[in-house]
């Protein structure tokens, strides 16, 4: 059920938008003004329609497509190709949409009235036309719960692909299995995906383990976005440690530095800050120095090989690492390092391929477009040479 403070995803055909649920805060979505008050204590996943600036649950009706067989006997042999089948101009349609009191249904009726070819279309094409227009003009949205699954769709659907390094759902899914992330693991994550990977890891560890989030300066800013959307319970994030990547290879030095700062600290705020930093450093040091890292995931904008070289020695033997890259060359470099040093076995470079299908009676086929750029993964298992 939706609660105040949750984030919700508005979905309509191929667009998704994300909003926090705040009471009595009207805002605009598409051309509609609405408030989210009505969503509280309502279920996720249903369709809601905006009426009177509020969202109302719409019952799902059985998809018409599913029950209707395409009719091949009617055909379009007499449909003459004309560019001007729609008599309303773009501007006229835009003006129509500005009318305060016009409903989506009315707009669609007007479009049909003014379509020269509508009556000549096959029944199937007519339905397709109406469905398309409905999706465009009706104020009906699916309200989805932000989950790793829906968020990963959100980033790929919108123009946010680059924000998550083009990370496709299946690639992310493979990162999580091949790294063996689960409860009771110490997981080290270095990512530039707005927290998509970090949030996935936090969810799979669920508080039963430790998650070390490495980033320049230990900043959580670039990974916080998706963690916020996920709205995790506090026990999930209590063992999440945001630690500076640049300190990860000189922990002793860093601890010494912090101790020195602490020793000369006079200001309470400063002391608290240093104490916290020191606790964090000790925690990370404890895991790194005793080689207790169970899973290592690198999916960052930096060249992975030098980073892997620094971090792999903190891993226990027989543990899994996964490195993601949009191109294969940086992973070939990591592969060379691993082979040369014999620090790992079962090293595989792979790419992934995902295609969706349209499954409808008499009209089943793979979707016409696909995302061909799922990136590459290098996976492997650490071994000991002792």
């Amino acid at each position, binding site marked *: 059920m939706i609660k105040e403070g949750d984030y919700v995803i508005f979905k309509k055909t191929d667009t998704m938008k994300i909003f926090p649920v705040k009471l009595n805060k009207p805002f605009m979505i598409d051309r509609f003004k609405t408030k989210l008050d009505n969503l509280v204590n309502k279920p996720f996943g249903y369709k809601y329609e905006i009426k009177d600036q509020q969202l109302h649950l719409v019952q799902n009706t059985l998809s018409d497509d599913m029950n209707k067989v395409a009719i091949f006997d009617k055909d379009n042999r007499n449909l003459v190709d004309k560019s001007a089948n729609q008599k309303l101009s773009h501007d006229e349609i835009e003006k129509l949409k500005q009318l305060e009191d016009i409903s989506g249904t009315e707009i669609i009726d007007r479009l049909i009235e003014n379509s020269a070819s509508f009556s000549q279309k096959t029944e199937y094409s007519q339905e397709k036309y109406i469905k398309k227009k409905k999706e465009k003009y009706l104020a009906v949205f699916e309200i989805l719960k932000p989950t790793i699954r829906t968020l990963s769709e959100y980033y790929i659907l919108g*123009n946010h692909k680059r924000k998550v390094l083009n990370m496709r759902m299946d690639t992310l899914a493979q990162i999580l299995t091949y790294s063996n992330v689960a409860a009771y693991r110490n997981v080290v994550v270095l990512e530039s995906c707005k927290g998509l990977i970090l949030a996935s890891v936090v969810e799979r560890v669920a508080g039963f383990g430790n998650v070390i989030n490495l980033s320049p300066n230990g900043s959580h*800013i*670039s990974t916080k976005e998706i963690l916020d959307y996920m709205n995790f319970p506090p026990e999930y994030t209590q063992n999440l440690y945001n630690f500076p*990547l640049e300190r990860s290879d000189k922990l002793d030095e860093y601890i010494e530095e912090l101790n020195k700062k602490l020793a000369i600290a006079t200001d309470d705020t400063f002391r608290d800050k240093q104490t916290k930093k020191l606790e964090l450093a000790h925690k990370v040091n404890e895991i790194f120095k005793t080689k207790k890292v169970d899973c290592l995931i690198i999916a960052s904008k930096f*060249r992975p090989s030098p980073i892997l070289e620094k971090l792999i020695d903190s891993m226990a033997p027989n543990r899994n690492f996964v490195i993601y890259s949009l191109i294969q060359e940086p992973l070939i470099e990591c592969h060379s390092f691993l082979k040369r040093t014999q620090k790992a076995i079962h090293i595989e470079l792979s790419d992934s391929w995902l295609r969706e299908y349209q499954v409808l009676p008499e*009209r089943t*086929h793979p979707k016409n477009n696909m995302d061909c*750029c799922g990136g590459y993964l290098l996976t492997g298992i650490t071994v000991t040479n002792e």
Partner: protein
Amino acid sequence: MSFCKTNDTIKEGDTVIIYFSFNQLQPIKVKRGSNHHTKYGSFKHADLIGKKYGSRIQCTQGTVIVLQGSPEMWTISLPHRTQIIYTPNISVITMQLDLKPGSIVIESGTGSASLSHALIRTIFPTGHLHTFEFHLQRSETARKEFKEHDVSDYVTVYHRDVCSDGFGKEDLADAVFLDLPSPWKAIESAKTAIKREGGRICSFSPCIEQVQKTSLELARLGFVNIFTVESLRRVLSIKKYDLPDFDFNMDWLKYKGNGQENENQNDQIDKNEEKPVPKKIKKNFNESDDSDDEVDGSTDATYTAKPINIQPGHTGFLTFATLLHKDFHKV
């Protein structure tokens, strides 16, 4: 000029392809006295005449290239009247139908004649294409295009519904190609149309249910080696890459924006795909805007090939079968 021969110089009346970039091509008919307006400004048709194909044409605000009409160029620039068949599938169809100069081929429907041009190119000068289209306007347009493209000696266009009326041909064709909503309705007639010594058939269908019905009907009518494939081509763009090294010795705290700083500095890799190239650069003919990074002379630049993000994931299923020599069929 002819779409199936190679030509050197542009003549009046030729259909030429004005090439702006990978996805921007425009066929025009050269007519002395006309002007052509492009986003790079305009040029006079008269200036084209006598020029070599493959030349750069100076427009008022930039350069375009003028190319000869060929089946492949036509496929990516033709006016769509229907869904068309693209070159990767055309390639497999041509090979699997054993086509070569001299082959007699039957095709239905003609559609936008994307495949037709390629078929003619392969079977001319001694072969012939019989192409059937049930939509009157389309069949007339195709006939007109074949004439304009100087290939009409090698093709006959029929306006006919082959599913109800058949091809009306007997023991004539080496190969039959079907691109119909209900291809199974035309197979019996296709069998009749194939030569006594046998031949090959191909059916193109977007949906799997069509493939299933077609395969059953082919088996029922005694076709052998029935098989179905999907053929896709994936284009990779070539990009310069330069992943930054993380500097473990830098004081990242002092580096601006802590953590988010090089958001945009990094992936040169995706730049072109996602951000529209500024208009200013587009003014001059510069193909690399569309897909590849500019290649510079420096030898230490490193390039990688990366698939273009969204590409065709499905066009249709291709079902092939053989009809064996008719005289040896057990009746």
